[in-house]
């Protein structure tokens, strides 16, 4: 029995874009998730969080490092063992309009996993299971014969969730699963995900760019920037005591639904833009925009270190208590 349900060790994923242009999408990422917990992964576009999610479930091959699920190395499994793994690790995708095959009925979409893994012995069992799954996610039996384009975004996400649940997974990667939905629908889906987690003892990797939602749903959170995790801690600790300048900048930039607070807070804007993830230099990747940067930040890359209370930061200044 493994210590942690999912363990990611030194994961690297690069994309080769032509001669000598290597995009460091995921560069030495490590973390673990215990069973029944939710791990939040935040960052802006291009930070590599989606690539992490896809590499973990082996939609992409890893270039280096390991992903251990229940002590099994995900990227070394073959044949039958690999197929079994696909039913244990599932994913919910971001775009409700692209994640369902427009040519298939909702019932067929949900039932695909049932067919692939031969989970139902008779046609009747199959149909009943599809109805059951529809109802678990808050839809109804009549919806099984309809096509994706007839549904709203939130309803399509529910179909995506039902599809993932059909194969009885233990671990689900929610890749921006609610980002494309309206606010009131987001709340419904978040509630659904939480309810399902309790009911089926699921473990989630929750990838998002909306800090408030991640704060609400995750037990632990990591912040990514340009392919690296730059801060990681238990959620409350991270949001109450952010240390890395990027994290504080991110939290300062995110607007809150509180006009008095918004009008009173100083507008600290992060300068510049995210540099290119192609062939990055071996220095602190945030140094070019960091108000606390010192010469040593441009000479070496800071490692992720525990600064107490299981709060990890990758920043020279922070590690020495200067921030």
């Amino acid at each position: 029995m493994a210590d942690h349900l999912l363990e990611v060790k030194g994961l690297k994923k690069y994309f080769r874009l032509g001669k000598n242009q290597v995009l460091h999408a995921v560069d030495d990422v490590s973390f673990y998730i215990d069973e029944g917990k939710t791990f939040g992964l935040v960052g802006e576009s291009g930070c590599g969080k989606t690539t992490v999610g896809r590499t973990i479930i082996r939609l992409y091959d890893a270039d280096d490092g390991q992903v251990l699920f229940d002590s099994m190395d995900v990227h070394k499994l073959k044949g039958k063992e690999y197929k079994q793994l696909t039913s244990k690790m599932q994913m919910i995708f971001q775009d409700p309009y692209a994640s369902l095959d427009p040519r298939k009925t909702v019932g067929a979409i949900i039932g695909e996993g049932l067919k692939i893994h031969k989970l139902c012995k008779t046609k009747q069992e199959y149909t009943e299971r599809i109805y059951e799954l529809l109802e678990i996610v808050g839809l109804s039996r009549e919806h099984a014969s309809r096509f994706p384009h007839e549904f709203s975004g939130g309803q399509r996400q529910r179909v995506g969730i039902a599809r993932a649940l059909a194969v009885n997974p233990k671990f689900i990667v929610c890749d921006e699963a609610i980002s494309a939905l309206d606010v009131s629908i987001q709340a419904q889906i978040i509630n659904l995900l939480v309810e399902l987690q309790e009911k089926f003892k699921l473990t989630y990797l929750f990838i998002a760019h909306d800090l408030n939602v991640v704060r609400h749903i995750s037990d632990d959170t990591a912040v990514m920037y340009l392919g690296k995790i730059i801060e990681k801690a238990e959620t409350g600790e991270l949001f109450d005591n952010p240390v890395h300048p990027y994290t504080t900048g991110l939290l300062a930039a995110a607007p809150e639904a509180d006009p008095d607070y918004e009008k009173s807070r100083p507008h600290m804007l992060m300068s510049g833009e995210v540099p290119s993830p192609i062939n990055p230099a071996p220095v602190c990747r945030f140094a070019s925009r960091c108000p606390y940067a010192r010469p040593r930040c441009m000479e070496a890359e800071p490692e992720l270190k525990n600064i107490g209370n299981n709060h990890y930061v990758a920043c020279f200044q922070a590690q020495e208590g200067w921030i």
Partner: protein
Amino acid sequence: MRERILEIKDLFFSFDTYAGEVHAVRGVSLYVNKGETLAIVGESGCGKSVTIQNVMKLIPTPPGRLKGGKIYYCGEDITNYTQKQMQKLRGKEMSMIFQDPMTSLNPTMRIGRQIAEGILKHEKISRAEAKDRTIQMLGKVGISNPEKSYKRYPHQFSGGMRQRVMIAMALVCNPKILFADEPTTALDVTTQAQILELINQLKEELGTSVVIITHDLGVVARTAERIAVMYAGKVVETGIARDIFYNPKHPYTSGLLESMPSGGSSKTLTSIPGIPPDLFAPPKGCSFAPRCKYCMKICQEIMPDLIEVENQHSVSCWLMHPQAPKHELPGRKSRVNAQNIREGV
């Protein structure tokens, strides 16, 4: 009373589709004061974009169809303006920026020229003058090295930079009103903060009125002075920002505010059940009734009028009727000291 730059009265607008008529806008009334920022908030399908696109007359008719209502710009009735008349207004008096900058930027033309041509269409100045003003504007919106950037193509800029170019293009002729349709939805949080700050700065400097359309309540809280909340093609509540956030009177507004995570301890959010109605067959009575936890018999029969209940705070809900039971609708709680709130307006 402040001057009203824009006033929309009882606008009705539909689309004719294969399945029938889609009632996209069903009696919308709102106004924008000079120099203020109005945020129109609502979820997808509520009609906020269609309403504003109607002001600029950007929707092809057919399949769109204006069924009724009036639009006034600076007091003048522009409801039945022809496209030719609108072309004189667009760019010069009123401008629009969109979620995707690529929709208003020609990918095959250098950005400098695109902006300069816009000026030349409305003002009789020399090409050199237009170029100068463009370069000045590019600098104002934060594009580094404006002379060099003048000659660049849209694809050579990042998403945030393209948004700045679009803002430059929209404001270069100093229009009285700027419509921003989800201007930062596709941007990262940090870029969004920069763009919102930029719009605010320029607004102060140029005295432009801004209408910002968004579904993001955080953005609203940061930028808006007044807010109009829309649902299913109608305005359900309008008011100043503080009233809407801390003291909402419409159950939809309240439900929306409650469904946002606020760092509380419970893992369940109070969500509004169900989905918005299909405007192909809008329900009789109040369109929010099927999802409303305060729903009363009258709500299912007759649509409530929008009436002003406090200073500048208008609501369309039967709970406002003198005979209706009194409910305290939950709103947001501010981080800022309650003392300060009472000392404010």
